[in-house]
């Protein structure tokens, strides 16, 4: 019996050691020579304000197309949001609230990873990832999508610029609270 318990405990320990590092094979094989902390993501809080002064309630804001300076940074969705406890009301195919409702957006740099069978694809991958050094940058929100109660989807183009600052050796930067107007 003791032996069985011991074997099980050992097995559990070994299983616990097999961690998924969450990296793609390409990222795992690429070594960075930069010893400073790599910049990873932008943080922003966005709210969707209607023409009537209310705020749209959705589970997430999708396909937010973000550019930094002139380069494409990511096309991401906001973190999923449980709207159960939001004081809200329905209007047409929309759910709205009187209070300002922020959606959290964590925007990692989105680098398209090809199949990696040719040298040129690796070269493209190495050159595509760029680190943000300390300094001022402009974040451009080109477009985003929302899905309404009747499952219809609408794309909006706020074309909004927002400046933000990256400090030395930081992993992320807060772009700010951004209010996006929708019709």
């Amino acid at each position, binding site marked *: 019996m003791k032996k069985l318990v011991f074997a099980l405990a050992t097995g559990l320990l070994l299983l616990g050691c097999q961690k998924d590092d969450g990296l793609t*094979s390409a990222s795992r094989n690429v070594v*960075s*020579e930069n010893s400073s902390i790599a910049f990873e993501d932008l943080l922003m809080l966005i709210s969707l304000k209607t023409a009537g002064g209310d705020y749209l309630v959705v589970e997430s804001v999708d396909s937010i197309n973000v550019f930094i300076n002139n380069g494409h940074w990511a096309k991401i969705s906001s973190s999923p949001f449980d709207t159960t406890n939001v004081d809200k009301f329905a209007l047409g195919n929309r759910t709205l609230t009187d209070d300002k409702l922020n959606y959290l957006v964590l925007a990692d740099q989105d680098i398209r990873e090809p199949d990696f069978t040719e040298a040129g*694809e690796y070269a493209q991958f190495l050159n595509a990832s760029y680190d943000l050094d300390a300094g001022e940058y402009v974040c451009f929100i080109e477009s985003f999508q929302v899905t309404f109660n009747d499952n219809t989807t609408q794309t909006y183009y706020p074309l909004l610029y927002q400046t933000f600052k990256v400090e030395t050796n930081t992993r992320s930067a807060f772009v700010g609270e951004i209010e996006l107007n929708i019709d």
Partner: protein
Amino acid sequence: MKTRYILSILCAAFLLQSCYKPGKIQIQNNINSVEIYDVQWGDIDVSGSLFPGETSGKLKVYKSEAELPESHIVSFKMTANQKTVFLKTVEKYKLEQDEELLIILDDATAVENPNN
């Protein structure tokens, strides 16, 4: 008699040795926007750093290094943007005796990372 025998063996060995003609190998980096370095053909170091468009010098491959003809893959480290990856070509490149082989690595060269 014994001396003559040894001499003939030495002569034969010398003749065989002198018949071996080393091949020459060089590498050209035609991959866009990356530097490659530590370039090897099999286990033989062919070149240090090569910038885009640069070609290495011709490296003579002597019998002590390889019994030509031999075929080997080319391995190298590719670096750009302070990031580096180790790659091997899928294709093997054959070098004959007395041949000058120019291996051109470009964007379309099939490569793999042994870790995949």
